[in-house]
C-alpha cells in the first residue's frame, strides 16, 4: 500500500491497472493523500566547525542512527535532512532559521547547541505556528521559560536541571561555604545561579561568585584567589577545552586535595581521558552516565560504537532521543506531520521509554522531566553512583503554558 502511494507519477502511469490502489487510498484520510507521498523534511542547525563541532556531529550522528534503525521512515514516510552549520554565530541565527523555515519549508527544525542561538531561534518560532522546533542541547532556561511556545520542545536539559542538584550535593556532603566560578555567558550564569541556590537549600553560602569573560582560560589569578579565600568547596561550570584546562590548573595549584570540586556534569563529560588525573574522583550531576545499567543504554552504546568507531557521550544521547521523539510523534499521527496541532499533542503526551538515560517525559513547558544522576570519574570513566534527583522537572519560571 505505501509502495503504491509513494509517487504521484506512478499513480498516473498505473491508473488503468491498479484497482488495488484505488481500494487502498480510499482507506486513507483524504487530507493526507497528497502530503504522505512527499518526504518529511527535517532541518538541522548545529555547529559543524570550531570548538563545538564535536557536539554537532555527535547529535546529528545519533539522531540519524535512531531514524535509520526505524527503517529510515517516520510514520511511514521517508525523511530528508537539510543541515546548516550554525558556526556558533548568534548574529547569523535569524537568517539561518528563516532559510530553513521559508526556503526549505522544513517540517521539523532540530537545533541548536548554543543558548544564544536558541534564544534567537525561539523568538522567531514563537511568532509562528509551524514548523516544530526541537532543541537537542542548548540549555537556556528561557527557551522553556519566558520564551516557551507550543511549537518549541527540548530533548536535552535546562541549565537549571543538572546544576541545582550539584549544589544540593555539596550541602549533603557537609560543606558550609563555597566559591562558584564560571564563564560570563548565558549557560555559565544560569548554572552558577542554580548551583548556588541548590547549596543554599541545604544551608550553604557562597562567599564569592567568579565570572570570567567567555572563553578566557587563564585561570591562575582566580585559583590564587580561591586559595586565599579557603572555602569548603568550589562549584564550577566550564566545558570542552576550557574544562580540561581548569581541572588541570586546579590540580596543579594544589587545590584538588584541599578544596573539593563539584559542578554540573559538563565539567567532566567527554574529557575524562584528556584531563587524566585532574578529573579523577570529581563528582558531578547530569542527566546521563555512560555506565547506566539499562538494556537501552547497552544497546545504544554498542550500536553507536559500531557505527562511528567512537564512544557516545551525553550529546549523542540527546540526539538519539530527538530521533525517538520525532519517530514517536510522526507515528502517532500516521505520518501526517503537516497537521501540526496533532503532532504537538503527540509530543506533549509522549514518554520516551527507550532512552539510554532512562525513561523521561515532557513537562508542560516542553522540557524533559528526567532523572539527574550522581557520577564520579574513576579510571577515566564516568562511574554511576546513584540518582541525585528523581524525575526532576525544571521550574519553568515565566512560561505561560504551565
Amino acid at each position, binding site marked *: 500500500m505505501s509502495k503504491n502511494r509513494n509517487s504521484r507519477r506512478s499513480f498516473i502511469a498505473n491508473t488503468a491497472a491498479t484497482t488495488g490502489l484505488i481500494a487502498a487510498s480510499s482507506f486513507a484520510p483524504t487530507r493526507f493523500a497528497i502530503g504522505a507521498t512527499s518526504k518529511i523534511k527535517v532541518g538541522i542547525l548545529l555547529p559543524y*566547525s*570550531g*570548538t563545538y*563541532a*564535536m557536539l554537532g*556531529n555527535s547529535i546529528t550522528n545519533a539522531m540519524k542512527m535512531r531514524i535509520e534503525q526505524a527503517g529510515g521512515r517516520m510514520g511511514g514516510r521517508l525523511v530528508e535532512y537539510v543541515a546548516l552549520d550554525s558556526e556558533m554565530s548568534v548574529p547569523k541565527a535569524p537568517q539561518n532559521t528563516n532559510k530553513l523555515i521559508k526556503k526549505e519549508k522544513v517540517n521539523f527544525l532540530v537545533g541548536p547547541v548554543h543558548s544564544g542561538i536558541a534564544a534567537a531561534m525561539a523568538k522567531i518560532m514563537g511568532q509562528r505556528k509551524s514548523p516544530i522546533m526541537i532543541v537537542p542541547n542548548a540549555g537556556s532556561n528561557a527557551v522553556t521559560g519566558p520564551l516557551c511556545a507550543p511549537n518549541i520542545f527540548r530533548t536535552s536539559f535546562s541549565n537549571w536541571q543538572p546544576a541545582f542538584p550539584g549544589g544540593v550535593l555539596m550541602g549533603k556532603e557537609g560543606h558550609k561555604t563555597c566559591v562558584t566560578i564560571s564563564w*560570563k555567558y548565558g549557560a555559565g550564569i544560569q548554572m552558577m545561579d542554580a548551583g548556588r541556590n541548590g547549596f543554599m537549600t541545604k544551608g550553604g553560602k557562597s562567599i564569592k561568585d*567568579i*565570572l*570570567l*569573560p567567555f*572563553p*578566557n*582560560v*587563564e585561570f*591562575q*589569578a*582566580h*585559583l*590564587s*584567589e580561591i*586559595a*586565599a579565600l*579557603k572555602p569548603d568547596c568550589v562549584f564550577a561550570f566550564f566545558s*570542552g*577545552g576550557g574544562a*580540561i*584546562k581548569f581541572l*588541570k*590548573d586546579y590540580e*596543579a*595549584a*594544589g*587545590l584538588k586535595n584541599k578544596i573539593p570540586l563539584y559542578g554540573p556534569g559538563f565539567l567532566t563529560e*567527554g*574529557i575524562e581521558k*584528556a*584531563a*587524566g588525573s585532574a578529573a579523577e574522583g570529581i563528582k558531578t550531576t547530569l542527566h546521563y552516565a555512560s555506565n547506566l545499567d539499562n538494556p537501552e543504554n547497552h544497546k545504544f552504546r554498542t550500536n553507536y560504537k559500531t557505527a562511528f568507531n567512537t564512544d557516545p557521550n551525553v550529546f549523542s544521547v540527546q540526539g538519539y532521543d530527538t530521533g525517538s521523539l520525532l519517530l514517536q510523534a510522526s507515528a502517532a499521527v500516521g505520518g501526517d506531520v503537516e497537521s501540526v496541532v496533532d503532532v504537538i499533542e503527540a509530543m506533549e503526551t509522549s514518554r520516551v521509554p527507550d532512552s539510554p538515560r532512562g525513561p523521561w517525559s515532557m513537562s508542560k513547558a516542553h522540557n524533559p522531566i528526567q532523572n539527574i544522576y550522581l557520577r564520579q570519574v574513576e579510571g577515566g570513566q564516568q562511574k554511576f553512583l546513584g540518582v541525585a534527583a528523581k524525575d526532576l522537572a525544571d521550574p519553568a519560571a515565566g512560561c505561560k503554558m504551565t
Partner: protein
Amino acid sequence: MDFATFLIQILNGVQYGFTLFLVASGLTLIFGIMGIINLAHGAFYMVGAYLSFWLFGITESLWIAILIGLPIMIVFGYAIERLAISLLYKRDHLYQVLLSYGLILVLNEMQKILWGSDFNSVPVPDALSISIPMGNQEYPVYRLFVSLVCMVIASSMYIIISKTRLGMMIRAGATHREMTQALGINISRIFAIVFSLGAALAGFSGMIDAPLSSVYPGMGDYILIISFVVIVIGGIGSVKGAFVGAMLVGLADTFGKILLPEFSSMVIYALMALILLWRPQGLFGRPT
C-alpha cells in the same frame, strides 16, 4: 588581599606575560623586519601544539617531541614564506592580510582532517609535574620552567639581534632595505630566515604551552588577538616593546580579574587605548 597572595598574583601576571611574549615576539619580528602582517601566527601556534600532541603520542616524551617538532616548524615556515608570502612583498598590506587569513582557514581545516575535532592533551613531563608550596597554594613547577625558558629565549633573541652578524643584517634590512641589498646582502634569504624563525617561535610556544593549555581546534584564535594587543602596546616591530607589552598585559589581566572582576574582559583593551592615546606608535614604536 594579604601580602603573600599579592606576591603570588604578581608571579601569575609575570608568568602569563612570559608566555604571551613568546608568541607575540614572533609576530612583531615578522612585522618589524619584513613589514608583513601575519594573521596566521595564531594558527602556527596551534600547529605547534598539535605537532607536540602528535609527536608525543609516538615518542612518549615532550622533549623529543619538541626536538623533532622544531625543525618541522622551521621547514613549514620556510615553505609558507617561499610558496605564498614571498609573492606578496611588493603588494599592499591588504593582500597580506587576505592571504594570511586564508592560511588560518586552510590550517584549521587541515587540523580537522588530520587530528579531528576532539579536545586532546599532552601531559606535563614527569620530572616537572610537581608543585612547590607557596603561600596558601602550591605553584606548578612546569609554569616556572616555562617562564625560565621564555627568559632564555628573550635574552638569546636580544643577543642575536643586537650582537651578531645575522642580527646586524636583519636590522639593516629592516631599516634600509635597498642600501643593504646594494651592499651585497641577500635580503630575500634574510626574510626567509626571519619568517621561518617567527613561525618556529609560534610553534615552539604552542608546543611548550600544550601541557598547560590542552590542545583543541581554534586554540590559536584567542592567542592571536591578545598577541596583537601586546605588540600594539609595545610598538609594532619592536621586540623590546613586545616584552614590556607582554608583561603589562599579563599583570593588567591578572589584577584586572581580581580587583575589577566586572570589567575584567575590558581591562587590557582599556590599557591599550590609554597607551595609544599617550603614544600612538606604542611604547617603543618608531613614530611614523
